[in-house]
């Protein structure tokens, strides 16, 4: 399978070009920040409306990753829904689609800051999931190791012979992985942000840029210019 392979706390992991993380030894697929129902929530809050198709778009990509990996366990790493009401308001067709993806699999919803309560969809609901040697949670904590998290929607940009290019990116060091957002219509935080450079990520951290192919680089810490 194409992807960027590395080990974290002794576990062999693969970052996929879509932004998902695959743990082959456990046949486990982890995705973060799906933000399903974002357009519905925006409309509900009176913000400029977005068309209601982003959920389908995100689920299409998730279905493809599940088909390719055949994963038996899926961990959604928090902020899977734009808020609890958005989970509630998903059209029946999309709820059914999620149920189909869940069929025959273990499915875990990790709580995020957008979706703290339980949702009325199948699957287990947990604040975090320890799965030694790794632990899965929404927001990274300092001084942890073997931690898989999301929340920040990290992005990285590079200067290429006078042009700048930016992509959602995995941030990886010997303690943790921070996953890029998997959902459609999600913004992001540059890898040079103090949230990452202020001690959370080690000096030798890598950024793995997603896209048609994955590209690993030392995590950009200074603005590459726009």
């Amino acid at each position, binding site marked *: 399978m194409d992807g960027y392979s590395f080990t974290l706390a002794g576990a062999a992991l693969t970052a996929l070009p879509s932004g998902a993380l695959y743990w082959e030894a456990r046949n486990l697929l982890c995705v973060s920040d799906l933000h399903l129902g974002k357009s519905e929530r925006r409309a509900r809050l009176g913000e*400029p409306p977005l*068309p209601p198709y982003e959920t389908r778009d995100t689920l299409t990509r998730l279905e493809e990753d599940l088909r390719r990996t055949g994963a038996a366990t899926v961990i959604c790493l928090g902020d899977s829904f734009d808020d609890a009401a958005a989970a509630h308001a998903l059209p029946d067709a999309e709820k059914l689609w999620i149920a189909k993806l869940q069929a025959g699999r273990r499915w875990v919803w990790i709580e995020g800051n957008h979706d703290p309560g339980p949702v009325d969809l199948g699957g287990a609901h947990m604040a975090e999931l320890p799965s030694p040697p790794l632990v899965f949670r929404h927001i990274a904590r300092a001084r942890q190791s073997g931690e898989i998290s999301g929340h920040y929607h990290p992005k990285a940009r590079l200067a290429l012979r006078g042009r700048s*290019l930016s992509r959602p990116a995995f941030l990886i060091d010997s303690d943790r992985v921070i996953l890029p957002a998997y959902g459609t219509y999600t913004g992001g935080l540059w890898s040079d942000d103090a949230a990452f450079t202020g001690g959370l990520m080690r000096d030798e951290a890598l950024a793995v840029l997603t896209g048609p192919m994955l590209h690993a680089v030392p995590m950009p810490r200074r603005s590459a210019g726009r």
Partner: protein
Amino acid sequence: MSNLPAPLDHWFAARGWQLHPHQAEMLARAQAPATLLIAPTGGGKTLAGFLPTLADLAQGDHAGLHTLYISPLKALAADIRRNLTRPVEEMGLAIRIEDRTGDTSSHAKRRQRADPPHILLTTPESLALLTSYEDAPRIFAGLKRVVVDEVHALAESKRGDQLMLALSRLQALCPDMRRVGLSATVEDPPALAHFMAHCDHPCDIRHADPGPDPDIAMLETAEAPPWSGGGAAYAIPAVLDQVRRHKTTLIFHNTRAQAEIFFHNLWLANEDALPIGIHHGSLDRAQRERVEGAMVRGELRAVVCTGSLDLGLDWGDVDLVIQVGAPKNVKRLVQRIGRANHRYNAPSKALLVPANRFEVVECLAALQAVKDRDLDGEARGPGPRDVLCQHILIRACAGPFHADDLYAEVASAGAYATLTRDEFDACLEFCATGGYALRAYDQWQRLKQRPDGLWQLRDPRSPRLIRMNIGTIQDTDTLKVRMRRARGGKPLGEIEEGFAATLSPGDTFLIGGQIVRFESLREMVVEVSRDPGRTPKIATFMGTKFATSTQLSERILAILNQPDWPDLPAHIRAWLELQRRLSDMPQAGRLLIESFPHDGREHVCIYGFAGRNAMQTLGLLVTKRMEEEGLAPLGFVSTDYATLIWGLEPLTDAAPIFARDALRDGLESWLMGNAVMKRTFRASATIAGLIQRNSPQARKNGRQTTMSSDILYDTLVKYDPDHLLLDITKAEAMRGLVDFGRIEEMLHRINGRITLRRLTRVSPLAAPLFLEAGRTPVEGAAQERLLAEESARLMQAAGLA
């Protein structure tokens, strides 16, 4: 003058004036349903348009609105009010003349609705708004005449379509309404007559004596123009010299940025401190009015300006027009030349200043065209359907309507004469439901059909929103610029939002001829301070980028293919001779492509001569084809005559790249995802009412609109590819920013004949392209190759690989 009523006759006699023949003719034709009068600037054509009105109103028994006058410019409406009120008072006629534009106070507007004046001077947008009121039939009761000024300028844009739809509505309310169109420069009078008349009415075309030929030449300078660029800084001493030798000079530029830079350079060289001003559409209104006032009072020796002074106002004593940069379009050049010597029967004097060497050829072509009185212009397409959608909503605001009646009205407008009932119904359906993909949303469901078959608005509150968003002018998203002061400093003008977003505190730019320093962006206002520096780092605001017209391009190609060039300066002759010797000359009936290595990259130069916008689109399409053929293109840059592409692999066979079907496929599939298409979509979606810029709460900023419109666009492309607005966007792409129509025209012209010259180095004609700004990067395999190279390099440098 037996046919003039006594007060008018006396007024003319007291001044010893005679009617011009075309004025007498207009009076004689007062009862004709439609007349197009083509008369030169200063030929008294506005008075000619109003004479039948004055003659009729002199009878003194008309109550209510008699004549509507519509002009493309607010300022022109105000100016005409002053110029018309004076003679009317001198004639002792009791005629009320008022203007109504976006600047009119709401109090005055209310009074005008309750008690309309005899003559109302307005703009297409204000008229559309008037027709949206439920009491429109009462406001327009008794309307006899409509005078459309500068009708050719309105016909060039969707404002003209909106106006003609509004007139179709008025004609239904007032079947006897007569139409008069006034114009100075028309390339195709019958087409314009068809555009402005009701389809059942004949429209007569009257020509006034065109007056003497203009006195027009290229400005001679000591220094040769540079190889590229648009600044024309080399010509500053010669231009100043001309300003000194004339009373008042207008110095026209094609873009606002060029005008600002030129004005700045002019001041640096202005040792005699001649009073020179600047005027363009991005400047604050108060500033523009100050310059206009000083100009009218004869206090300025020169004004550096842009299209903002193309039309209208009578500037008194302008005795020289200078056009800096190639004119791109003969009709506009003629219009600008007409700004000099606003007196009938005196030749206008004008000078052209090419900004670079290639423009010397283009200026020569333009001089020939002006001399031959060969005006250019793109043929109008059928009436745009986004404007029709807006018209349907406006009609709905005025009250319930029957679809059959509205269709008959719309199809009576020349531009919509070919509109089919199916197309009309699709627009109505869109207004009613928003279209298939958007049907789930209440806000796009605006019309409903009542049991009696009439259509009406679903929500009685929606007229307010629809009225707030009337209009077809797509202003680029701009932010106000102010001097930073304790309580809000002096407003300077506006810059584009996109440009403002690139500024960091401390950056300097030019506006209104002064260098300012960017301090902060506060609540959508750019705050700046004065900067004593002499070299502004950045200066851009887009303004309009014109593409060289088809006719002018043809003339340029003809000049290039002359055996020799006795009319051109020696340095240009030497350059063209070298091109002919080392490569080939571009021809109209054969596409010249050069392929050569330079500076470690492979290059391809395509001489399509299809105008800037089409050449830009060709760059997008050809690089896409090259990507598919594995040539790894990296980027391209386009001018009006050529596109230069650079990449990693050489081009050795052009035929597969330029196959018409392949390019068309590219337009259909791939170009749909392009930013230019998204911009085209945004414009149409805004006009058609899918996106609303203005709401009772607040004006949406550009980024919000762009964000929602881009997402809407992607959604429709993916889930509802047959949506009306995508269909409209594709139709728009044939002209305007995408201009695929001119690529098709080029492919037709070359008919498969392509010369590919493989050279060992840059050719003389291609060399200036390397200095052009505005490069577009290509995203594709080459980018992934560079990204892989760069990440390998970074990993190596970090000791990780």
